[in-house]
């Protein structure tokens, strides 16, 4: 037989009674089913983009949407431009990271406290909802007035925007253990701490990770929005977006948008990967009978 990493259709037909070619062709069809559809949509988007730049827009108005290769050569391939963006990304990433970390710690503490007594949940939950309902754009200038435009104010914006999904998902997760499991712990006189550590916390993990994936993306958005509105201090990706927009530098603007979204996607993927590593083995649907 051939090397299992390659696929030879001729050999597959000759050896059609064997198991391996079948497995390989099913792997090939999985590849086709998983990878091809998004690639096709991506190609269609790029095609539409070129069409808009060259056909719909006349040359005088082409700055509105520069074609993809211009974005590449000016935004990414020009080191001067690209390094400026990377510095902005680095600054915004730091803000998003610290904001997320604080939101996680604070969110866990709040959710754990709320999970311990219904009355505490009733007391705190409405304010968590209020905090979530305030448009972040409304609160950013206030934060600027009160705390200045420095690093800590930007982190605060991230905390405010990222906190709610962590609190809600963690609380939901902590309360998700079945009554029968609680009865089991009650029967064997488990302490509050034992119940929290051995039952409620592990039961919460799938929901916690769902919350983290949402909040990580929100924290990146918070870092960019804060920087965009503060418009001063260390230059992050938000200020760059504003600068490129004002100067009609479409290539850099597009490159920055792509970079910011790549940051959001990578934190989302990171937490998905982490969740798979930590709880993938047991979480998910039961096989039943």
């Amino acid at each position, binding site marked *: 037989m051939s090397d299992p990493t390659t696929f030879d259709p001729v050999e597959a037909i000759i050896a059609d009674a064997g198991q391996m070619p079948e497995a390989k062709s099913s792997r090939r069809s999985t590849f086709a089913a998983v990878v091809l559809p998004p690639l096709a949509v991506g190609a269609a988007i790029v095609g539409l983009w070129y069409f808009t730049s060259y056909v719909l827009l006349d040359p005088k108005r082409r700055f509105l949407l520069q074609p993809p290769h211009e974005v590449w050569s000016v935004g990414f391939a020009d080191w001067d431009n690209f390094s400026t963006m990377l510095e902005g990304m680095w600054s915004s990433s730091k803000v998003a990271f610290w904001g997320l970390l604080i939101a996680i710690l604070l969110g866990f503490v709040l959710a754990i406290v709320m999970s311990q007594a219904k009355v505490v949940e009733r007391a705190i939950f409405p304010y968590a909802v209020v905090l979530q309902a305030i448009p972040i754009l409304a609160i950013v200038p206030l934060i600027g007035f009160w705390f200045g435009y420095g690093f800590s104010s930007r982190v605060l914006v991230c905390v405010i925007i990222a906190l709610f999904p962590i609190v809600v998902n963690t609380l939901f997760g902590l309360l998700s253990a079945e009554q029968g499991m609680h009865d089991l712990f009650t029967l064997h006189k488990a302490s509050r701490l034992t119940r929290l550590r051995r039952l409620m916390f*592990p039961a919460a993990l799938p929901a916690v990770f769902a919350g983290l994936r949402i909040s990580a993306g929100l924290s990146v958005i918070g870092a960019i929005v804060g920087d965009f509105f503060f418009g001063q201090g260390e230059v992050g990706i938000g200020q760059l977006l504003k600068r490129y927009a004002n100067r009609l530098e479409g290539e850099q603007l597009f490159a920055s948008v792509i970079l910011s979204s790549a940051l959001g996607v990578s934190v989302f993927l990171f937490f998905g990967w982490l969740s798979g590593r930590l709880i993938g083995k047991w979480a998910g649907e039961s096989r039943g*009978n």
Partner: protein
Amino acid sequence: MSQPALSFRNVSMTFPDGTRALSDVSFDVDRGEFVTIVGPSGCGKSTLLKIASGLLNASAGDITVDRDRIGYVFQDATLLPWRTVRRNVELLAELHGIDKAERASLAQTAVELVGLQGFENHFPRSLSGGMKMRASLARTLTLKPPVFLFDEPFGAVDEITRERLNEETLRLFEQERFAGLFITHSISEAVFLSTKVYVMSARPGRLVASFDVPFEYPRRPDLRFDARFAELCGQVSLALRGAHS
């Protein structure tokens, strides 16, 4: 005279919303006795077990039982999905502060008793319903409970698995001779397992009939085809109909 392992005296239960679940229930279970209560769904059978275990407090009456190492097998397997079979079986020993080495050996013995060898490192999600129930039984066995409460544990598995699990429960009882209190709505399950069968009326639950089961242990699976077995099942069935007509 020695105390029975579990004793109910004139126990009644009324929930705060006014629902009367149990009315004046009295019975004893001695060590080496396997008592089953049969009744239709919603007659207060589960409430009775919750009271026996201390999960609920009765509104009236006296209950005597040593709750220190009480065994309770729930309707669902209630395995912790993040723990492997081995770690699930070790859980109760862990909650009782038994050290790691002893825990492991208790768990291993229990896993072998229920025939789950080879599945110690599986997570619950990859087990069938019957295997989950076995793991749940093994978990309870680690504490060697003098009193074993079963809350319709095999209601959710198919008939063939159920019969096999009945035979295994019987084997465990023959070996460990605990005081067993079993709740079910299956008459043949009740007669097959028990030394004594009580029939419970509809809400509020009362014990309206009792039957001594004369068959010797160890019991063989083909006891189910015995004419006397069928006759006793018929009598229990009649009493059950009488209690609910």
